[in-house]
């Protein structure tokens, strides 16, 4: 058995590393650079029923050790993702986590019902926390009752386990985590980006066309670690942690706080080879810590 494999509902992962949704497209671009089969999983870009063109540009801005983005869930729509994107990924030995987004409950249900039948989709990630769309997205992720109802509706149609991506833009993330667990969620992914803003030094106006954007990158890691730590204590379903992961030590930190696997987002833009590099570095990191199996460290900060 490998030293770094982990098991989660629906996901038997050869390693706990996966690119985070929105930071890896549908894998095509990174497939030009390395064999995607080395990855534990891939969280593909959010898929909505209809084709979405997203927000006006500029859509990204740099901040100290971070990045703001307001892409706005641009994607080719359910039909094209099913016909063109997912079959492309079948070439690789890697389970896919499909990120499901929508405006109304019915949209989420429609995407989930269909996309969960794709042969390589082994789990769903419900996107109830995108801060960059006016309707849907975050509105589902900030009210525990609505979040729970949405999870129940999606669970009723999905053929694969359902993970729910939580927003950090709430007063009490534990309350939302408990609500989605009660709704039948098989796991939690966290955190999505933090709503932020940067102003142009000369004009004083927001740099991003949307005004606000989602903050990601190393700057958000302490917030993410704290939230994973709190949620781990409160729920009995596994967590996939993310937020500012750039190296093997960050992975150890997230898993120590309670994550069973870790997603890498913005760091892919800084170094497109970051995921395979982390996977390669993990065994030596475990050796250093005197740990035989990576799963032994999950939640060790609580013990």
């Amino acid at each position, binding site marked *: 058995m490998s030293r770094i494999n982990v098991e989660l509902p629906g996901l038997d992962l050869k390693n706990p590393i996966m690119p985070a949704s929105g930071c890896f*497209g549908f894998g095509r671009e990174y497939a030009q650079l390395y064999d995607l089969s080395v990855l534990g999983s891939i969280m593909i870009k959010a898929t909505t029923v209809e084709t979405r063109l997203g927000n006006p540009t*500029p859509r990204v801005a*740099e901040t100290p*050790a971070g990045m703001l983005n307001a*892409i706005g869930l*641009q994607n080719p729509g359910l039909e094209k993702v099913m016909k063109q994107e997912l079959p492309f990924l079948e070439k690789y030995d890697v389970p896919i986590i499909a990120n499901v987004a929508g405006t109304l409950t019915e949209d989420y249900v429609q995407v989930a019902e269909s996309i969960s039948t794709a042969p390589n989709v082994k789990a769903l990630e419900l996107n109830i926390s995108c801060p960059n769309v006016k309707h849907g997205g975050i509105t589902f992720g900030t009210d525990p009752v609505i979040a729970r109802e949405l999870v129940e509706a999606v669970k009723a149609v999905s053929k694969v386990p359902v993970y729910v991506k939580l927003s950090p833009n709430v007063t009490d993330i534990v309350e939302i985590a408990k609500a989605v667990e009660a709704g039948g969620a098989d796991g939690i992914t966290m955190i999505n980006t933090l709503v932020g803003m940067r102003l142009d030094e000369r004009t004083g106006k927001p740099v991003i066309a949307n005004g606000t954007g989602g903050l990601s990158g190393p700057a958000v890691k302490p917030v993410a670690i704290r939230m994973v730590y709190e949620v781990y204590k409160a729920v009995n379903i596994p967590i996939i942690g993310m937020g500012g992961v750039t190296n093997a030590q960050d992975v150890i930190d997230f898993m120590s706080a309670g994550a069973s696997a870790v997603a890498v987002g913005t760091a892919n*833009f800084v170094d*497109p080879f970051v995921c395979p590099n982390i996977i390669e570095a993990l065994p030596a990191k475990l050796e250093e810590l005197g740990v035989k199996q990576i799963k032994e460290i999950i939640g060790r900060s609580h013990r």
Partner: protein
Amino acid sequence: MIRQERMTVVRQVEIAHHIYELVLQGEIVQDMNPGQFVHVRVSDSFEPLLRRPISIASIDREASECTIIYRAEGRGTQILSQKQVGDQVDVLGPLGNGFSADAAPEGGTALLVGGGIGVPPLYELSKQLNARGVRTIHVFGFATENVTFYEEQFSALGETHFVTVDGTKGTKGFVTDLLEELQPEFDVFYSCGPLPMLRALEQFYPEKPGFLSFEERMGCGIGACFACICKTTENTEKDYVKVCSDGPVFPKGVVEL
């Protein structure tokens, strides 16, 4: 093929006010074409975080060297400007689709129009056009004299005109003012620079084939993040294109201006 490489700094010179010419050596050079760009990580730390897209100004395959010309304006490019000969720089490239020198007929004339830091990618293009027996006319606009560069280099390749907004060098005004005055005869035009300039060129020469290089804020540089989207005109197949991977160079008429 896109590759990541630690390229070696061979030369770094400030050729105009805050404008730097940086020569890098590495294997990536073998795959470079005019109009493509590189994505440069200026620091091994995460501050600043993102890479900087910089156009390729000239390519020397024999020496495995390329030249990039950039304006040291923000934190990232200022750090880059501090790199010394012998230092290594993390480069991802070559990226995007560049200018096609083949679009100009042999024995014909190409008009190259650049604005500010949009001028550099036209240099390698001009060299390749001249090598193919295409006559080049260069019309370049800058804000003021102390940010102008490469007059000698371009003059060696063809008719070269500079225009500055404040009139400190060449004609006073914008490239469009000079183009109206010159009324150049040509077969195809190539351009890189600010959006109003690209827009004006499309309007000026509706009958001529043309190629425009665009700039947009980028995240990944390879087409995965959807940050650098441009809307396409209604009569094209797609609703949008990505500047980093579908461009930065597009035939005129593709991108909605």
